[in-house]
């Protein structure tokens, strides 16, 4: 095997540590500190967006409720969706986990452009503030997708939405560029592509998508903004514009965006499984290459969100076929992960439980996705609660369960302390049961005829909506278990040591939390990371560090 990147003389420099409070914690250039900043900010928006969801469910406890006015309800689900996508899931997975873990896993001291990394983060809080401030000027009401002509007619809050999402889009593009250069150029000596951890593969493909796809979002938002504020007639039917044009440009970004939201979670799953099953991941190459395939194909399926928008028949057919095609590499991953459990020595700790939750719910979401991929079936299911159910199964069941798996897994590396295992199990089980109770019934009422984005509904759906709302309240409460766990651990959690789980990737070869320079010497990689039972495949690394799990 040829060895690439023989030495990084510039990147292996250890510069002097930051000295002032501002340089250490505010405008930090350290990827690990920036990761914490992303986690805190993303976590805050998760709470806010979650509260909006609970408010929505109070309104939907019964038909014709007047808890929220119709206008407020519409604004609630629009900001809920926008915040969850752009202020929670994408920042947590890319800015949070990507920053925390990827440079460590490739044996680097930091990302390629630390200053740009800092800029990326600092675009995030203003974007979030701008989005929530839109409530003061009439927040957008047409969902996170903001289709014109309505979004052209809506109040100034929609222009604020355009600006907010534009800002976070710039942040995501810069992060994508930064991560991709880092992964291509700064892997430790000896880390060929087939010795690269799967989370790094996932982050790399995600970075490519972030960089290329997000540019489309910027263009779409700019187009909507100038139509609204300056009358530039892209979407003005009376002057030759086309509402469907927005749908094309928006979804050309937003479909890759959903892969931005799931690929890092796939990466997390691929890391947690070998560690807690203590055997190599099954089908490493298949998982790695299927990630790249999914990344490429993700640009070719966007119009499956538009099957009822007056597309030509050949367009509908082409997008249907490509969508079904993308299911195949996804299925390969799921089967490989399940096969990775076979013949292992499994420790059923919280990170692995959340991975099981991911596998169960994401597979279900994938199956309903195939149902939606077929055009004739989609014609009935589009814009109904069936789609609401599907998207939450893949984004909550998939991304959020993946995020929690990652949090429980890398918490010791980030903080130096362990989370309480019993609380973790309670959190998992309550979240898993409440999640299914909330979203499974939605398939039923969706198929039966309840549309989405409505503040009231036909009374025949009352009992199901009541059940869903109560389950949603329990789901919200289950998060308190995690909050309590996190606070307790931060105060006096058990000290973790460098490698509490017995992992074999490079982040576990240094102390917890990692020193600002990460590695005393840049490690040299001799083979792949998942070969449990063989000696550690690194030189220049402290082999004395325990690789025996604590429990």
């Amino acid at each position, binding site marked *: 095997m040829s060895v690439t990147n023989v030495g990084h003389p510039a990147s292996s420099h250890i510069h002097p540590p930051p000295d002032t409070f501002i340089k250490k914690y505010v405008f930090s250039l350290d990827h690990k500190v920036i990761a914490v900043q992303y986690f805190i900010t993303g976590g805050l928006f998760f709470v806010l967006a979650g509260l909006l969801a609970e408010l929505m469910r109070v309104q939907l406890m019964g038909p014709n409720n007047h808890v929220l006015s119709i206008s407020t309800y519409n604004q609630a689900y629009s900001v809920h969706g926008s915040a969850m996508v752009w202020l929670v899931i994408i920042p947590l997975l890319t800015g949070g986990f990507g920053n925390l873990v990827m440079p460590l896993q490739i044996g680097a001291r930091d990302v390629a452009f630390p200053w740009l990394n800092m800029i990326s983060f600092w675009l995030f809080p203003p974007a979030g503030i701008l989005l929530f401030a839109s409530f003061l000027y009439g927040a957008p009401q047409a969902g996170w997708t903001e289709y014109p002509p309505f979004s052209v007619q809506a109040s100034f809050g929609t222009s604020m939405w355009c600006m907010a999402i534009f800002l976070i889009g710039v942040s995501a593009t810069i992060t994508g560029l930064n991560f991709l250069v880092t992964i291509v150029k700064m892997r430790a000596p000896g880390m060929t592509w087939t010795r690269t951890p799967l989370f790094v593969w996932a982050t790399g493909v995600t970075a490519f998508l972030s960089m290329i796809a997000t540019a489309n979002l910027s263009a779409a938002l700019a187009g909507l903004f100038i139509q609204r504020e300056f009358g530039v007639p892209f979407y003005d039917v009376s002057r030759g514009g086309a509402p469907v044009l927005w749908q094309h440009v928006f979804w050309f970004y937003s479909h890759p965006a959903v892969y931005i939201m799931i690929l890092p979670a796939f990466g997390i799953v691929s890391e947690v499984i070998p560690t807690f099953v203590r055997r190599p991941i099954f089908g490493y190459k298949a998982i790695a290459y299927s990630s790249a395939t999914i990344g490429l194909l993700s640009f070719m399926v966007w119009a499956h969100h538009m099957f009822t928008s007056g597309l030509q028949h050949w367009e509908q*057919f082409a997008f249907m076929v490509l969508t079904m095609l993308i299911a195949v590499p996804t299925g390969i991953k799921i089967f490989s992960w399940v096969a990775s459990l076979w013949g292992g020595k499994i420790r059923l700790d919280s990170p692995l439980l959340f991975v099981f939750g991911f596998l169960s719910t994401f597979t279900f979401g994938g199956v309903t996705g195939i149902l939606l991929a077929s055009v004739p079936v989609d014609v009935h299911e589009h814009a109904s609660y069936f789609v609401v159910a599907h998207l939450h199964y893949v984004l909550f069941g998939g991304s959020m369960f993946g995020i929690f798996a990652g949090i429980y897994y890398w918490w010791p590396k980030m903080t130096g302390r362990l989370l309480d295992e019993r609380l973790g199990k309670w959190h998992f089980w309550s979240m898993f049961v409440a999640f299914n109770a909330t979203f499974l019934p939605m398939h039923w009422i969706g198929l039966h005829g309840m549309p989405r984005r409505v503040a009231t509904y036909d009374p025949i759906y009352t009992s199901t909506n009541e059940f869903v709302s109560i389950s949603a309240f329990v789901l919200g409460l289950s998060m308190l278990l995690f909050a309590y766990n996190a606070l307790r651990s931060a105060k006096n959690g058990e000290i973790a040591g460098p490698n509490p789980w017995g992992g074999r990737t490079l982040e576990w070869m240094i102390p917890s939390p990692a020193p600002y320079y990460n590695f005393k010497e840049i490690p040299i990689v001799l083979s792949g990371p998942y070969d449990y039972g063989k000696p550690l495949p690194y030189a220049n690394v402290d082999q004395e560090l325990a690789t025996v799990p604590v429990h």
Partner: protein
Amino acid sequence: MKPDTHQPLLDSGFWRAVVVMAVISAVLMYIVVVYPIDRAFLPEASVVSIPIDNLFKFSMFFSVPILVYVNGFIIYFAFRYRRRPEEPIDAVGSPIHDHPALETTWTIVPSVLMIVLAVLSYFIIPMYYPTEQAAKSDVTMEAIGHKFYFEFRYPGLKQSVMNEMHLPIGVPVTLDITSYEETLDVKTGPVLHSFWVPEFRLKQDMIPGMVVPIHFTPREIGTFRIVCAEFCGLGHSHMWGKVVVESKTDFDKWYAGQQTQAAAPEAAKPISLAGGDASAGQTLFNAKCTACHNAAPFSQTKVGPGLADLFDDPQHPNLVTGKKATPANVADILEHGAHGSYGTMPNMHANGLTDKDVANLVAYLQTLHK
């Protein structure tokens, strides 16, 4: 630290689990096949709803074993391969990295299933779009989305029908679908709607500037729902309609009735407001009017102004039509609708109101004070 290689790769325990999961799958797959969607869940009221439901069943049929086996193996492996307490904490598992035959199988089989699904779908898509042949023999009519009601234009009927589409059973229909408002200005003009009849399994977005035809044949007599399935504004949650499928005789009677109405001069006799029931009016108000109006003073605008003290507000003595706020003039607006800067107040047909409903509403509004 040596991997456990005493057992054969796939032992009897494994195959027992496979069989158990196969039985569970078989039971569920059987249920999928025999489940009577039309009787037990949602009527299959159009001809194309049957192949669509069958396609859905086909997908569910093959999804069941995927779900059962993925979840089943997770549970089975989690128990079977968990580290026993007596084993060392750092015991390792099997070193097997891959299995080309297995991986090829689980690549090829789903691909084949996807191809079959695509082919089956390919044949169903044209069933709900008009072909040239169908266009010749179909009855063609229009469905137009407005804020916030459905307008239907029938061949041979001078006036449109609002919100309640009548169709004769068994007659194929081509429905030209679009969205329209009287003002086309981008800031106040038409928005997207979507025409969805769940019982027909048909949906088509109503797009301003585009006319998209769909084609279907009703096959069951009954009253079915039309649901607006694309966000269109404050009235979206209340934008509902009805499809009444009836026998040819009943349909002809209805059609003739519409023609008579159309021939009759407009507003020949104002609606009688005598005996209006305020409490019935209140129920109606809460059900239909609160989408756009608050039972609150004028300034509490929602889409239209608040309607409390409608008849004795010195600051707003006139209605949007420019006429004085009297019960008769209010009844006029309820009957014929009105246009304002806010949008369109639908007429009584659009709102599904009878003469009695109008009287009740006016009675209620007379009692509505802040």
